[in-house]
């Protein structure tokens, strides 16, 4: 067998094994999307209940709260980047990191200090490769985020927000995550988490007279708001985590599908080349035999 033919055969084999792997990853991702989407859906009643309650307090009391008041001067801002633990997901991590960079540039041009909180090992890799500082990392469960993680993140962010700026606290907090639009599109989304703007995004009550009547608060409006706002933040973070997980699986599926398709076309191309090489080899052998026989017969 000719050297060229052997080379093509080796390439075909290697593309075939790679294709097996990417195909398996594609199928795994496809089954995980369904589960991730079910979790997004299952968390909706909670988010809705919390949002309703917060808007009820916000609408029917004039309580000023530290989490909703705009600081007079914003000196330091925090960016929370929701990436994933694993790569092989197309532009998933690149997109969210780029959105984070753009936001940081914008904030810095407004004269604000930027500090980072990272979620997912890929974000950590990106930052430590560039030798850039970050505050805290949550990694390890971005594929199936638990509510406990969201609570931890929420508590840390609220603590940092409440801390005075002179002692290292931050004045505003942004989150950057991939929003799940559809199986084919995931969009990086930038949202300002704190200070809160509760009124925005609340569904209008269907019937103005019936909905949102005067509430009785236990113990009182201030305490209720005190307890509710951190919960609201946690629920927003949990939602971002779940959306990001679903987006990651969708992005992986898409990337692995195109990898499998690409392996297919490589295998096809190399098979043609290998056939060509085989034919050329046979042709050469025939002409050698014919030439040899000719030389023998003419030598007689």
């Amino acid at each position, binding site marked *: 067998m000719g050297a060229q033919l052997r080379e093509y055969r080796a390439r075909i084999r290697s593309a075939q094994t790679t294709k097996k792997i990417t195909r398996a990853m594609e199928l795994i991702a496809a089954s995980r999307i369904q589960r991730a989407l079910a979790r997004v859906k299952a968390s909706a009643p909670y988010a809705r209940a919390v949002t309703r*309650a917060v808007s009820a307090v916000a609408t029917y009391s004039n309580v000023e709260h530290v989490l909703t008041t705009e600081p007079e001067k914003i000196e330091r801002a925090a960016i929370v980047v929701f990436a994933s633990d694993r790569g092989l997901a197309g532009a998933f991590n690149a997109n969210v990191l780029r959105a984070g960079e753009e936001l940081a540039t914008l904030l810095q041009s407004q004269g604000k200090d930027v500090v980072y909180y990272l979620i997912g090992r890929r974000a950590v890799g990106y930052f430590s490769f560039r030798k850039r500082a970050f505050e805290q990392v949550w990694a390890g469960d971005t594929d199936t985020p638990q509510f406990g993680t969201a609570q931890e993140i929420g508590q840390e962010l609220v603590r940092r927000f409440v801390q005075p700026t002179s002692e290292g606290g931050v004045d505003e907090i942004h989150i950057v995550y991939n929003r799940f639009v559809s199986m084919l599109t995931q969009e990086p989304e930038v949202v300002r988490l704190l200070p809160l703007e509760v009124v925005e995004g609340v569904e209008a009550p269907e019937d103005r007279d019936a909905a949102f*009547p005067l509430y009785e608060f236990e113990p009182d409006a201030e305490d209720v708001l005190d307890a509710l706002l951190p919960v609201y933040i946690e629920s927003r973070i949990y939602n971002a985590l779940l959306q990001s997980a679903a987006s990651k699986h969708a992005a992986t599926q898409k990337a692995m599908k195109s990898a499998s398709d690409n392996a297919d076309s490589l295998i096809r191309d190399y098979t043609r080349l290998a056939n060509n090489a085989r034919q050329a080899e046979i042709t050469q052998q025939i002409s050698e035999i014919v030439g040899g026989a000719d030389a023998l017969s003419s030598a007689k």
Partner: protein
Amino acid sequence: MADLTVSVVSADAEVWTGSAKQVVARTQVGQIGLLAGHQPVLGILAEGEVRITTTDGSIVTAKAEDGFLSMQNDVVTIVAGTAELV
């Protein structure tokens, strides 16, 4: 008398939902009992259990720590990060 529509919701799932005659819960200022027609309430739950008497008379008990309870238009929602039936 009208019934209450009760749902117990945790962060990752709707734990229980159904109609009930009465809901008894413990808020930070004390125990509260809700029947249909109660005025709208929004309360922070204290440690303890929430007792729901369903329309057929059986009792459902739920654990909902660090949660809150809201009632409005005979719809009671018990919300907690981790809620579970006992």
